[in-house]
């Protein structure tokens, strides 16, 4: 037995557990591959302060073989880093930094490469160019036992069409199908949450023109700051590790340097509570009194982490994004102030797009007259974002601007939507179910660390702090929606009542004409005057 024990490489682990990373089936594999690449592209562009222009192409080669191309105008990647970024799992810049970004662990894109290699035998081809460098083209194979990239091709590309950027191309086994949770859906939802980015998407459908989602905002979102961990968010094991590896010689210094929101006063309080000396060696504590220190941290009042590390989408952009991609009658947006779960700052934003059932819209003019207005149809290709009036509302879930497309039922956001009383806001809802109506609810969580339920990043863990914030945001936007729906209903019933005037008032004129023998003109004048008087006494 003993001689059979040996190390397992991450790549091998992935090869056997691909579902954990979102490659459970061919259809999902296609989506995950594109998603990981697009996420990286957006992150890279924003990091460099560039307005993203992203090209996504999907080409069908055989029944179940697809070539996927994702190209961005990002800053490009230094030549030496390319093989590691795309060919080594758990390699990346984001895992250790406490800053809001789309990617987290450094698994995604290399996992996509590994998946392609496993299903088709071909590794990814990467072309990248930095501003002051030459474009290089790599083809990479992965050694899954050693988790190391093997470069099979390394050419210089003389005239690449972009000044800077990265192109990722891979052939994978996949299946293309439209509908909920499809690549199309993902691109569209990404366009909603990133109104500053331009997407060009070529679907693997014959003779279909590439779809272009234009950017409607011209400034790059503010770059989020990087922060040190907050004491509340650190678990005992991690605290011990930090104590071991720190450069600080004193405990007090360690606390102040390694954590945010800890000054001399707070450090003193924590140390006193743990019954330790301010000048103790951190590495000694790691062995002996770490537990006491951990408890002392939990007992001490420490202010919340700074929120400059968060980059919410912003109310205007959410509204802009929804208006761009949803043909609705009403939009409501709500933003919560930043909050904290387990020491991680986060912020919740909510947007609702609601469309009046039926074909006509009623508008009230300054004089209080109500008119019927025909709805514009077909201006948007959005049937899929707003459902019918008798269907559950569409829930658009986002974490750090990335749409979450599957596992809706297992997501904390869904739980929060269901536990909100939508009847108060004019939507019907049966117990324990999503509200019903022609509407889309967008929920975005911005955080330095989003608590996904799995590495496939499909659902958010239902922490109480998060649920509470989401609910509060939903209620705030819901109230605005409720006001609008109620007004809409009032206007509709008022319109119906007023239609009686037009229907029956002429008969008042006829009756009077028959009795009094007045002329047709006098009758018309009377009816018009009465109509005016009746309309002017109505209020909405």
């Amino acid at each position, binding site marked *: 037995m003993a001689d059979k024990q040996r190390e397992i490489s991450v790549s091998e682990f992935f090869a056997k557990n691909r579902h954990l990373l979102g490659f459970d089936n061919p259809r999902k594999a296609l989506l995950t591959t594109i998603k990981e690449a697009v996420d990286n592209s957006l992150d890279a562009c924003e990091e460099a302060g560039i307005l993203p222009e992203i090209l996504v192409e999907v080409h069908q080669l055989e029944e179940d073989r697809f070539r996927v191309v994702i190209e961005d105008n990002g800053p490009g990647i230094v030549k030496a880093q390319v093989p590691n970024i795309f060919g080594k799992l758990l390699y990346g810049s984001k895992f250790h930094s406490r800053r809001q970004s789309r990617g987290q662990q450094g698994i995604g894109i290399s996992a996509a490469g590994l998946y392609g290699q496993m299903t088709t035998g071909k590794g990814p081809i990467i072309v990248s160019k930095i501003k002051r460098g030459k474009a290089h083209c790599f083809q990479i194979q992965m050694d899954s036992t050693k988790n190391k990239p093997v470069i099979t091709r390394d050419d210089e590309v003389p005239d690449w069409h972009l000044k800077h950027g990265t192109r990722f191309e891979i052939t994978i086994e996949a299946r293309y199908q439209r509908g909920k949770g499809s690549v199309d859906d993902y691109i569209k939802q990404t366009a909603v949450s990133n109104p500053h980015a331009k997407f060009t998407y070529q679907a693997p459908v014959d003779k279909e023109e590439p779809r272009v989602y234009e950017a409607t905002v011209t400034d790059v979102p503010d770059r989020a700051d990087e922060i040190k961990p907050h004491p509340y968010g650190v678990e005992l094991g991690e605290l011990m590790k930090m104590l071991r590896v720190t450069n600080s010689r004193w405990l007090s210094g360690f606390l102040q340097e390694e954590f945010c929101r800890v000054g001399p006063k707070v450090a003193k309080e924590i140390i006193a509570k743990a019954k330790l000396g301010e000048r103790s060696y951190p590495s000694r504590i790691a062995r002996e009194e770490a537990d006491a220190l951990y408890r002392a941290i939990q007992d001490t009042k420490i202010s919340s982490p700074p929120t400059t590390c968060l980059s919410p989408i912003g109310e205007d952009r959410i509204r802009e994004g929804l208006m761009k991609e949803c043909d609705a009658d009403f939009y409501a947006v709500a933003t919560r102030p930043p909050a904290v779960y387990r020491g991680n700052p986060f912020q919740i934003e909510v947007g609702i797009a609601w469309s009046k059932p039926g074909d006509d819209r009623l508008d009230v003019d300054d004089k209080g007259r109500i008119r019927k207005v025909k709805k514009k149809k077909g201006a948007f290709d959005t049937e899929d974002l707003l459902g019918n009036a008798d269907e559950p509302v569409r829930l658009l879930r986002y974490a750090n601007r990335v749409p979450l497309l599957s596992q809706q039922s297992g997501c904390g956001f869904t739980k929060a939507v269901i536990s909100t009383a939508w009847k108060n806001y004019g939507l019907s809802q049966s117990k324990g179910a999503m509200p019903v109506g022609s509407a889309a609810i967008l929920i975005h969580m911005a955080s330095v660390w989003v608590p996904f339920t799995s590495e496939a990043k499909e659902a958010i863990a239902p922490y109480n702090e998060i649920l509470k914030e989401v609910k509060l945001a939903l209620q705030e936007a819901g109230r605005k929606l409720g006001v609008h729906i109620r007004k809409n209903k009032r206007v509709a019933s008022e319109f119906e009542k007023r239609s009686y005037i037009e229907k*029956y008032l002429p008969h*008042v004129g006829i*009756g009077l004409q028959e*009795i009094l023998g007045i002329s047709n003109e006098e009758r018309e004048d*009377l009816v018009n005057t009465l109509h*005016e008087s009746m309309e002017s006494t109505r209020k909405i």
Partner: protein
Amino acid sequence: MAAKKKVTKKVAKKVAKKKATAKESAQAASMRRAARAEVDQARADLRKVALDSIQEVATEVYKTGNAGGLPQMTMPQRNLANVTYDPKRGYFEMKGNLKTRTLDVNSVKTFAQTLRLMSLAKEMVSDEDFATKREAYYVSKNWGDAKFNEQRESDTVLDDIEGMFSIKDVTRETLRFVPEEHGGSVVGALTVIDRDPETLEEIRSDCAAMGSGAYTVPSSVDHLGFETTAKFVIAIETGGMFQRLNHHRYWRTANCILVEMGGVPTRATRRFVRRLADDLKLPIYAFVDCDPYGVCNIYRTLKVGSGSSAHVNRKFCVPTATFLGVTPDDIEEFGLMDATHPLLPVDIKRAKDALKNDPFFQAHPKWKKALNKMLKMGVRAEQQAFAKWGLNFVIEEYLPRKLRETKKFLP
């Protein structure tokens, strides 16, 4: 000579007779002319009042509307809450609570329909025509959007119009709307004097000479004349009992007039009986089922009128009427307990409602007692229940016994 004389005499007699006939017919003709002139004058007066009233209401609406205001129509409220009852006056009187209908989105349909029906009334008054309620309903079918969907709707509007004009002393009959329902049947020692609508010739109907049939009360009775030798009038609820009494010529035996009401008496029947009471000074006895409907609806309406027609009660009820039977006491006295049926929930509700809200029953302790007794017994008895003791028990025993003590009749 003698023969000749005789002949001459005969001729002379004949001539004289002829002369007399001529004289008579001349007299009759002038009387007819006078009658016709009188009738014409009366009709013209009524017509003028009606037309003026319609004109007045319409002008008011037109003026207010043209001035930029919202026109209103005012009419009495038609319900029990708007009537008072004073036993000395004898009928339900309107308290004078008015309802005002202002033109707005909710009332515009009714408003239009009211004006259009008023226009119809104007046309009928001018043309001396008339329309039944049903016909008025069908006339509206030509009005497009403003048409009535059910006769109930047009009846309500007609009642409102009637109420509105009653304030100006114009009746529904004057507006030329006549009720659909025919009046009740009448038999007995009564001669009704009517006129031919075309020739205005006098027509005498002997209600004792109707064979197995009966005289039918016309929809308008104010022009009728009466002659009688009868001592009293019995107003009967059901056609069955009326036929039994008629078949056995009870009216001859008892020297009375029998009137069949057929449920709640129509206005014409009420007015007819009222005239028998007023003109002929006859006592009126009501003979109805012993149940809340017979007492609280049929008898109450006959005697004091109803809440919904409060504006016409003064003429359309019979305050002198008294209640012959069937009383709750009769059930015990005539051993009818095993010929009864239990009161239904609607019956109980009706009786309790009458005790609580009806000014008539509140004014008469005897009635309160009787209704409470009925509720306590929990049963109702029909007129026909006497058949338990034999088909003609009612003629041979019940009526004679009751009529011996008319003073004891319930008020």
